[in-house]
């Protein structure tokens, strides 16, 4: 599904990713862990096409397409979902309007018919319910006045509504208390644990992995993947630290 080969990327001319390779197949959950400054968020933003994250080498194939040739909104329409570590506030635009525009823009891009207001609202209600979020929350402006935990939960509701093939979730567990962590973990499983879908979790801590069992755990350090293992690797990292394990 996703094939990253020898990816190099810079931010403000500073090399951050230095030859990262990773293959994700349908049905798999991958976790990328690593110390601060390893390039974890840069990987997410580079795959999402954020301006300022410049690819200087390598390639990324997504479902057989050259992902890097697509504009950010086209990547989303192609089935890529980027969950933000710091979801952005958009004053004056309600979540419902934002998500309906998002979903219909994706559908237009894929040559599908747009959803009516009623049909969209049904989906929104269903997906919000899965994440235990009151639909009234989605009438409020995007992320404005939301607590850290609510923002992350709202990210998962968005993921549920947009129904992507691949979700890249950047520190989705940060800022969550234990209850919210469980809701978010279960949300990821409900929405993304399906045969044709895959998840890339970018995380500092192993605690989210208690809820979302990864098939593979990778250690990112110095802009490359330096070690790959199974779920046990996360536990080992937690116990011994990045330096000892990745050395």
């Amino acid at each position, binding site marked *: 599904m996703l094939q990253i080969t020898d990816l190099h990327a810079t931010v403000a001319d500073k090399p951050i990713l230095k030859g990262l390779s990773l293959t994700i197949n349908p049905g798999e959950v991958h976790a990328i862990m690593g110390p601060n400054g390893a390039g974890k968020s840069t990987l997410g933003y580079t795959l999402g*096409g954020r301006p300022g994250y410049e690819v200087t080498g390598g390639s990324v194939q997504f479902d057989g397409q050259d992902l890097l040739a697509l504009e950010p909104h086209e990547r989303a329409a192609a089935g890529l979902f980027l969950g933000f570590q710091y979801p952005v506030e*958009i004053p004056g635009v309600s979540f419902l309007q934002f998500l309906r525009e998002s979903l219909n823009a994706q559908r237009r891009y894929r040559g599908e018919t747009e959803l009516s207001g009623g049909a969209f609202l049904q989906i929104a209600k269903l997906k919000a319910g899965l994440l235990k979020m009151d639909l009234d929350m989605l009438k409020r402006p995007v992320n404005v006045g939301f607590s850290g935990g609510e923002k992350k939960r709202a990210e998962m509701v968005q993921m549920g509504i947009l129904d992507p093939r691949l979700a890249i979730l950047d520190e989705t567990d940060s800022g969550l208390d234990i209850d919210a962590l469980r809701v978010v973990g279960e949300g990821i499983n409900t929405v993304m644990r399906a045969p044709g879908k895959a998840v890339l979790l970018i995380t500092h801590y192993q605690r989210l992995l208690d809820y979302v069992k990864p098939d593979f755990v990778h250690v990112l350090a110095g802009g490359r993947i330096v070690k790959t293992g199974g779920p046990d690797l996360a536990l080992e990292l937690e116990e011994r630290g990045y330096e000892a394990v990745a050395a």
Partner: protein
Amino acid sequence: MRQVAALPTRAQEDFRYADLAALAPLWPVAVEQVRVPAGETQTMTLVLAGSAAVARELAVTVEAGASFDLRVLSANGAYGRVSLRAELAQGANFTLGAAQLASGEQVLEIVTQVIHAAPDAVSRQIVRSVAGGRASVNYLGKVLVAKGANGTDGEQSVRAMLLDRTATANARPELEIYADDVKCAHGCAVGELDANGLFYMAARGIPPEVAKRLMLQAFVAEAFAGAEQEEALLEQALAALEAML
């Protein structure tokens, strides 16, 4: 015989950023008198549309305990100027909600002078301007609180969004206060569309032109919140924004 007033020059503060060449054929501008009798409520909507230059000048008197709600949408294809002087009596209430949408080489401007002549009057001015291309959007607004006009509550919220580096916004909210017990606030900001917001929208599949439209629509809507004609104004503003983008 009264002499026709000469065309203003840029030396006059209120015309400092005006497009005088476009103003000349409209000069002198007839003053439209608006009087809201004591205790009454009036609303007014001004929409500058079409492709011709427009200049309007209002002299508003809001009598004791009366309310006047003025909304302005400047979205014509040429020079547009709305100038007003509002005098507020005791306990009067005045609201100005204005949006200016300028593109090309256009100059759009709003010039206000709000006089709190007596105690306990409230004035709220919310101006939201968008400029692209080489256009300019101006707001020159003075709130004058007369001696003895205690309990005055005056607010000016002025924001402009520039779509291109070649566009200009001039904003000058001003306060002149001769009373002791007053609450006056003014805020003024000129900026660009939030790049983080645009990327966030793109990451959800929204193409850049739609993302910009959504953000600008929300920005402009602040000027029309609570207006009697809110929906109609928003619809016209949206059509103008779509033409701009």
